[in-house]
């Protein structure tokens, strides 16, 4: 899979200097990340225990766990939490599953493969605000959208996707952005597979499904880890797509945790409540991270 090459540190008297150099080189990054991760966190924790509303200055002082209590007993919160997890899981399944199949497809030789690949990868370069606007208006608009026109052309009644199936539609839009990334990484991994090995399996009479199951899939482990890792980081914080398409609605049908906190903080000016939401979001992200890091770390370290 990967040549394990240990870089032995220089021996003897230089070990001490090497250690110091290593520390000096590493410390700038570690220091600023330490500040970046701790200062805002402490501030969030502090605000979350305060009564702090920007439009109501009479309301101030220590709130204790009130903000948390309001949040955790709010049915919207549970809904948003669930939506967050559904979005992450759904997009991961689509992009890993679809990405693997497409990687195998675009590994085959066919006419114009290079151009087709570039077309498949393109959505990854589109900024979230644009892709959300594109899908909302040009593609899925119930009257003027292309998809609606197609449905009418075959005699169906167009569906107002974002009103009828808000969460699913947001998921599809996000998947459209991240599937190409998975294809990019997984295709690279498939191509690095030894051609002779595949040919040998074919000679031995292994069918395409057996080749996929026993040769290609095991080879993709590390690439899949990379995709899961990077995508989860971004999927936990989906914001622009929701803000542009549904603004979290109807009701809270497509509100995820980031959007709920945003609406508390910047639309209702409830700094205390938003901070409590922030702390909860951080706790949840850490729970996900623990599972993820544990599952993925082995593959990353290789």
């Amino acid at each position, binding site marked *: *899979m*990967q*040549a394990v090459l240990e*870089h032995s*540190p220089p021996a003897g008297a230089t070990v001490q200097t090497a*250690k110091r150099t290593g520390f000096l080189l590493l410390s700038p*990054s570690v220091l*600023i*990340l330490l500040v970046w991760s701790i200062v805002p966190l402490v*501030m*969030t924790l502090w605000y979350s225990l305060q009564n702090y509303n920007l439009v109501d200055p009479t309301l101030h002082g220590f709130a204790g766990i009130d903000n948390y209590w309001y949040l955790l007993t709010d049915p919207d919160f549970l809904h948003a939490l669930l939506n967050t997890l559904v979005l992450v899981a759904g997009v991961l399944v689509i992009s890993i599953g679809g990405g693997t199949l*497409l990687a195998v*497809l675009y590994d*085959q*030789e*066919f006419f114009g493969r290079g151009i*087709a*690949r570039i*077309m498949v*990868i393109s*959505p*990854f*370069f*589109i*900024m979230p*605000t*644009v892709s959300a606007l*594109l899908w909302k*208006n*040009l593609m899925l608009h119930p009257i*003027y959208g*292309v998809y609606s026109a197609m449905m*009418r052309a075959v005699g169906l009644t167009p569906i107002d996707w974002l009103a009828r199936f808000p969460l699913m539609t947001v998921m599809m839009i996000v998947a459209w952005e991240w599937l*190409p990334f998975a294809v*990019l*990484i997984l*295709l*690279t*991994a498939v191509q*690095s597979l030894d*051609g002779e090995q595949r*040919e040998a399996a074919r000679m031995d009479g292994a069918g395409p499904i057996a080749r996929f199951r026993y040769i290609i899939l095991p080879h993709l482990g590390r*690439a899949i880890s990379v995709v899961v890792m990077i995508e989860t980081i971004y999927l*936990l914080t989906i*914001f*622009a797509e929701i803000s542009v398409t549904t603004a979290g609605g109807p009701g809270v049908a497509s509100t995820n*945790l*980031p959007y709920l*906190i*945003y609406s508390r903080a910047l639309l209702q000016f409830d700094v205390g409540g*938003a*901070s409590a*939401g*922030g702390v909860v979001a*951080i706790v949840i*992200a850490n729970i*996900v*991270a623990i599972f993820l*890091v544990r599952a993925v770390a082995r593959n*990353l370290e290789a």
Partner: protein
Amino acid sequence: MALKTKTSTRIGVTILGWGIALWLFFPIFWMILTSFKSEVQAISTPPKLFFMPTLSSYTEVFERANYWHFALNTVIVSVGATAVAIALAVPAAYSMAFMPSKRTRGTLLWMLSTRMLPPVGVLVPIYILARNTHLLDTCTGLAIVDMLTNLPIIVWMLYTFFREVPAPILEAGRMDGATRWQETTMVLLPLALPGIASTALLSLILCWNEAFWSLNLTSSHAAPLTAFIASFSSPEGLFFGKLSAASTLAVAPILVFGWISQKQLVRGLTFGAVK
């Protein structure tokens, strides 16, 4: 390889490959097409594929908003954040790859875990800190935040690239009496350059498209293209022509950049993170 493949299979693969590619690319194609329509053509039902192209949407977008102002902000923020992040990450990744200690693995995982903090969790404090330090609505402020959010991923990618540089090559250099500095600049950096380049490319793309901090930390002065496009969203909902023209303008630079550099991006990733 192709010799034994049946012709019918090859035709099937070709049709499937092109079909999926066209389907996934269609929204982008349609956006570009619509940007050359007049507003009336843009919302005609059924949608028109053939029409007299016009630049009227573009003219109006340029009249209404200062595109270059937003584009320049995006370039400054993306390039600035990427440059600083790479400058900080190269020594860190070097240290982890070549001078590993007991804590290296833990440090790396901790770095990645800082990236998993949802930005919204620290939105309020960052907003207040930025306001108090007068960094709100400045390119510097946004670039600092973008740099910090991407730094862990950059360190990690560079680390995997550095680790794949074969040790015997470095050792050969050392045998020949090269100092660590010479070894680094003359042997390691040329070998790791594709990796550094593709890491920088990924960082540029992520910064260019970053929406959360861009929308929340800037208003007018430092607003990048993500904000430019958001300003066309609600009131312009039904002006598909202008919307498409503005969108095309916002994504065109990075899309073309991505097409040109995708080989490099893939090559870099093959060398490092994926193998």
